């Protein structure tokens, strides 16, 4: 069975190669080929999963070594894969949700003449992400990591004729580069400290390294995770990434890309366990992002950007849980999987709504759509109930566990983190209810498109609704399934697990979670359900206006990095012009001035030259005589 692991990556990679190199002759069949290959990858994953379940818990990790990538004395980089329970979870999520998004894209991209290329990129994305989670060393992981960055760049900027999409793609790529820098530095520190970067040896020998080194590695890994997972301070690319086609957003937010950061931290659990300072920073980053994303999500009128804020916030939950240590790793991954289901469902639902509304994204111009799009309404609604943590649905189980683990951190930290997660849950309920009410309820606020055509909302074709239905089923059932099928026991051999003991009882935490959810929903209902929604957004409070501008993240980046960078380069140019050029030009001017003075000696009179000749001769003779005398 081990030999099948490489195929998981190889099949979609082959698809990408065929679709991108195959040319126009594949235009009519390319999307089917891409979808088929993604599905093949998923079924290989299922086969491996079945095989894995048949083994005992400690014996489940599989390895496959293909060849040596960089054979240098003392620096051995292998193309080798490792499939353990953690990787398996990711493989099923990536290939499963990825395949559904492929199916959805068949309908969604039907009228796009570059559809074949789109499917090639999708396959590349899935392949890179699978490589990332299957690598058995950090260098190969880095390869997949960069592949994900490349694929996201290509897909976000897929509609490159729009300047905004091209800019968004560049922005995503550049911000990600900052994080990639962190990962490469972390790998370099690992290599100098441990002499290797394979997972097994590095994670097993964390005891040999000093606390400072481990903290440095941890913080650099966190920086990497911040870039890919859109955490503060590298979060600014996520909102703009909505410029890509909606299936891309679903893929980035649910199955690939943003989950990579969480994977990296959980995979490096042993390093973080040994570096409590780095762990603390991880929880702080998670907590800040979780509130940041939630607040941004409340203010956005663009349905996709509201969902993007929500993703940021939910990933914040996962990062926070991953920072809690062994009490949180399992729940970070559990929330990641459930989030993968409902967020993909929500994005596909949003895409379906846009599909029926002339690609309008402003929720203030929706309203009353539930009668026109019943399937979208029901699937989106189930995803909505899942994300706000409605009891019994998947978000409830995973988020509740994270809140419980946050309280179980203990001490003041525990109370602070717990309260933040609870507050986040309330805001989540608020903004998701807002999205729901503005889109599907209330009166129609539809606007004609630029050609004067009124929108004709209609249910999307079956290729789009079937993936949405399957994802909705996952959103409903995944949490309960994980809860009762023993997800904790499944992951425990890889990530370790310690049962947290919150200072208040688990039942009380659950009750509080449900209570804040009800409060959030209620507030949103009072504001957007009871009262009509204005088509033009009101000016809003200072916070609202800031949140509409993504809490000034771009302004901050512009002020600090763009303006700051400009000033730095300007001052360097100034130093270059004054100091460096000054020395050079000064030397030239001094020589020039001196020669100008000396030139005056050349007056053209023969007698002057004769005097100097006589004088020189006299001096020479005098010197000779003097030397004789001495």
């Amino acid at each position, binding site marked *: 069975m081990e030999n099948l692991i490489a195929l998981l990556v190889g099949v979609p990679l082959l698809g990408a190669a065929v679709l991108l190199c195959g040319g126009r002759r594949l235009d009519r069949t390319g999307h089917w080929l891409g979808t088929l290959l993604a599905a093949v990858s998923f079924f290989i994953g299922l086969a491996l999963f079945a095989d894995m379940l048949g083994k005992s818990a400690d014996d489940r990790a599989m390895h496959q070594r293909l060849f040596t990538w960089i054979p240098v004395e003392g620096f051995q980089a292998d193309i080798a894969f490792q499939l353990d329970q953690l990787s398996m979870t990711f493989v099923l999520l990536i290939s499963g949700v990825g395949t559904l998004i492929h199916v959805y894209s068949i309908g969604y991209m039907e009228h796009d003449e570059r559809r074949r290329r789109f499917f090639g990129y999708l396959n590349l994305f899935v392949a890179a992400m699978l490589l990332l989670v299957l690598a058995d060393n950090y260098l190969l992981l880095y390869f997949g990591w960069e592949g994900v960055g490349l694929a996201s760049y290509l897909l976000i900027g897929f509609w490159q004729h729009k300047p905004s999409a091209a800019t968004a793609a560049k922005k995503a790529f550049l911000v990600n580069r900052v994080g990639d820098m962190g990962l490469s530095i972390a790998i370099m520190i690992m290599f100098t400290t441990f002499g290797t970067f394979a997972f097994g040896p590095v994670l097993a020998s964390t005891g040999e390294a000093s606390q400072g080194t481990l903290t440095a590695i941890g913080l650099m890994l966190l920086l990497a995770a911040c870039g890919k997972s859109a955490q503060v301070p590298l979060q600014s690319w996520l909102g703009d990434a909505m410029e890509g086609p909606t299936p891309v957003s679903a893929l980035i937010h649910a199955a690939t890309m943003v989950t990579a950061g969480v994977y990296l931290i959980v995979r490096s659990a042993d390093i973080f366990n040994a570096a409590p300072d780095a762990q603390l920073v991880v929880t702080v980053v998670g907590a800040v992002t979780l509130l940041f994303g939630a607040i941004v999500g409340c203010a956005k009128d663009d349905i996709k950007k509201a969902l993007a804020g929500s993703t940021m916030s939910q990933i914040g939950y996962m990062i926070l849980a991953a920072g809690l240590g062994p009490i949180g790793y399992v729940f970070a991954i559990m929330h990641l999987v459930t989030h993968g289901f409902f967020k993909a469902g929500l994005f596909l639902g949003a895409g379906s709504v846009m599909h029926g509304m002339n690609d309008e994204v402003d929720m203030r111009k929706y309203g009353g759509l539930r009668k026109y799009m019943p399937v979208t309404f029901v699937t989106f609604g189930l995803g909505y109930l899942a994300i706000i943590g409605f009891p019994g649905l998947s978000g409830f189980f995973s988020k509740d566990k994270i809140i419980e683990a946050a309280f179980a951190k203990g001490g003041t930290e525990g109370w602070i983190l717990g309260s933040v997660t609870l507050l986040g849950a309330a805001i989540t309920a608020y903004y998701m209810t807002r999205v729901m009410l503005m889109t599907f309820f209330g009166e129609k606020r539809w606007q004609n498109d630029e050609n004067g055509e009124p929108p004709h909302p209609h249910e999307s074709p079956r290729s789009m609704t079937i993936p949405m239905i399957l994802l909705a089923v996952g959103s409903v059932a995944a949490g309960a399934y994980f809860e009762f099928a023993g997800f904790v026991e499944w992951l425990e051999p890889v990530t370790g697990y310690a049962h947290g003991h919150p200072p208040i009882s688990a039942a009380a935490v659950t009750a509080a979670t449900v209570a804040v959810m009800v409060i959030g929903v209620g507030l949103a209902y009072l504001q957007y359900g009871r009262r009509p929604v204005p088509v033009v957004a009101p000016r809003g409070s200072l916070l609202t206006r800031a949140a509409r501008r993504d809490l000034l993240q771009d302004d901050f980046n512009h002020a600090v990095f763009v303006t700051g960078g400009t000033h730095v380069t300007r001052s360097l140019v100034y130093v270059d012009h004054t100091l460096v050029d000054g020395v050079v030009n000064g030397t030239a001017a001094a020589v020039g001035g001196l020669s100008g003075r000396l*030139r005056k000696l*050349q*007056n*053209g*009179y*023969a*007698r002057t030259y*004769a*005097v100097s000749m*006589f004088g020189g001769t006299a001096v020479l003779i005098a010197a000779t005589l003097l030397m004789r005398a001495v």
Partner: protein
Amino acid sequence: MNPVNYLYLAALLFTIGAAGVLIRRNAIVVFMCVELMLNACNLAFVTFSRMHGNLDGQIIAFFTMVVAAAEVVVGLAIIVSVFRARHSASVDDASLMKL
């Protein structure tokens, strides 16, 4: 007669010649002063030849005469052509090699 006296005479002639080169403006006079200096040298060479009792100095005096004859030919030709071009035989007028 003491041959050193000839050396004194040679030094005197050389000094007169050098002073003439430095002081006089007329190219012909300057030229004649140069000849005076050359002949002062010749005198000194011949004197040294006599004092040392060999012929080296006399041979060099012949060389000097040949060089001086060639120099007179070239020098006078230059002076004449400068005079024709500029209607002046003053060396100060020919101070064109300056900026």
